[in-house]
């Protein structure tokens, strides 16, 4: 086997170089990158053409759903292979068109089946809907390809392995977009919750955008929870830097009774700490938290410690087969405890015992609202929030 094919500086070499960089960066993340490799990387990706190819490689590697039904070629096909890698495949195909027209069916490298094909198209369709809706401002330097979208349905947990060696566990009804470029690894949490285990690389930052804020990894595992109007970040290992966004200001905090964090452009949150910022720009204090309790959702248990019921319900709803909503005043009650994803109905019934609330089902929605104590009836608190 000739291992010393030297193409000279052709466009195809960039592709091999980009792929080699993927391996190098991944290894560097596992071991510890020497500054010499870092300098080399910066030099390589300073070239815009290299950058473009690296972005394309990243996107193609991340878009694994596209190749799910692909199969390996047969032994006979492998033996008949005449391509010598000396130029791009497109040029080789032009120069030597296949002698036998490719047959459908048996020679196809895809499993053909209408059911699975329909499912794949449905998945991709959902993906495409989200791609079109993504605000572009999330993706400086994300190239023109658009991000790869990962999503889960109600109650589903999904483990995603990214091409850089990082992995993400997605909670129920969660949507997440991934766009790797040479400048940075950008992830957007559009809704739901996720636990990030980041392969750290000082020259290739890992940045999570949620709400108006961004969370930048400094060697880390962390959880991000995107609620309807706020973002909660819990660091289980290492440190992150959080930029809560342009609206961040010194207004009453998200959690009443909690001191405000000083308004800084960047807030450092380390292992064992939690920080929240709201869409309106309010910031919580950086406070100590039980990181074990914060990760129990990956085993189907949601743990709460003195959390307003509206956030509890919003979160439980991501795992509930029936939609759950809460009224404005019931939503301010504070709940502590554990909710199992297979015991949501029991939990709902239990709410009536610990709080002055009524839980009733209207159409397909379970509504939690304040118990009507007035003798005339006609409760003023019967309106439940049905959309997050």
């Amino acid at each position: 086997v000739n291992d010393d094919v030297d193409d000279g500086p052709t466009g195809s070499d960039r592709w091999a170089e980009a792929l080699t960089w993927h391996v190098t960066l991944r290894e560097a993340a596992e071991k510890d990158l020497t500054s010499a490799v870092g300098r080399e990387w910066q030099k390589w990706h300073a070239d815009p053409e290299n950058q473009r190819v690296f972005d394309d490689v990243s996107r193609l590697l991340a878009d694994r759903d596209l190749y799910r039904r692909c199969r390996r070629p047969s032994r006979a096909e492998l033996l008949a292979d005449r391509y010598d890698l000396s130029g791009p495949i497109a040029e080789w195909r032009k120069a030597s068109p296949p002698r036998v027209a490719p047959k459908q069916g048996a020679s196809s490298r895809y499993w053909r089946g209408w059911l699975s094909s329909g499912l794949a198209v449905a998945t991709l369709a959902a993906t495409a809907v989200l791609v079109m809706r993504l605000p572009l401002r999330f993706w400086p330097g994300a190239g023109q390809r658009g991000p790869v979208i990962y999503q889960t349905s109600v109650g589903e947990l999904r483990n995603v392995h990214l091409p850089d060696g990082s992995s993400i566990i997605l909670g129920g009804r969660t949507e997440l977009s991934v766009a790797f470029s040479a400048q940075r690894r950008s992830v957007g949490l559009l809704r739901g919750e996720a636990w990030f285990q980041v392969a750290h690389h000082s020259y290739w930052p890992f940045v999570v955008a949620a709400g108006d804020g961004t969370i930048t990894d400094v060697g880390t595992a962390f959880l991000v929870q995107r609620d309807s109007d706020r973002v909660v970040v819990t660091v289980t290992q290492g440190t992150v830097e959080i930029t809560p966004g342009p609206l961040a200001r010194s207004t009453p905090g998200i959690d009443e009774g909690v001191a405000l964090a000083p308004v800084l452009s960047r807030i450092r949150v380390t292992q064992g700490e939690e920080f929240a910022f709201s869409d309106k720009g309010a910031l919580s204090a950086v406070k100590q938290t039980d990181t074990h309790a914060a990760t129990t959702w990956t085993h189907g248990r949601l743990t709460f410690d003195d959390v307003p019921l509206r956030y509890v319900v919003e979160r439980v709803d991501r795992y509930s087969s029936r939609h759950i909503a809460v009224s404005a005043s019931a939503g301010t009650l504070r709940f502590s405890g554990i909710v199992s994803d297979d015991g949501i109905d029991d939990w709902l019934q239990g709410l009536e015992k610990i709080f002055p609330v009524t839980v009733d089902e209207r159409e397909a929605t379970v509504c939690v609202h304040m118990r009507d104590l007035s003798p005339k009836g006609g409760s003023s608190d019967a309106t439940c929030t049905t959309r997050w």
Partner: protein
Amino acid sequence: MTVARASTTEDGDFSAESTCVARERLEIVERAINELPPRCAEAFVLHVLQGLTFEEVGRKMGISWRMAIKHVSRALEYLQTCLDAADVTRSAP
């Protein structure tokens, strides 16, 4: 679990158009993979789909890891060439 519920929160407006874009993209990639030289396809499937390292791909195919990278990179380059030719990724808003 109720998958149907999640889908009702999507607007219907985009779905017809996006299904076409998604199907087009899948079809282009499917066709491109079928057109790959078999050894490139082999390396591509082993690395990208089955998650083998380049050392493992090389060992399986009887080549060096460097050549394994070359095979996969040529395959990726070809997929992108086909997608660019069809212009589905660039035209996505």
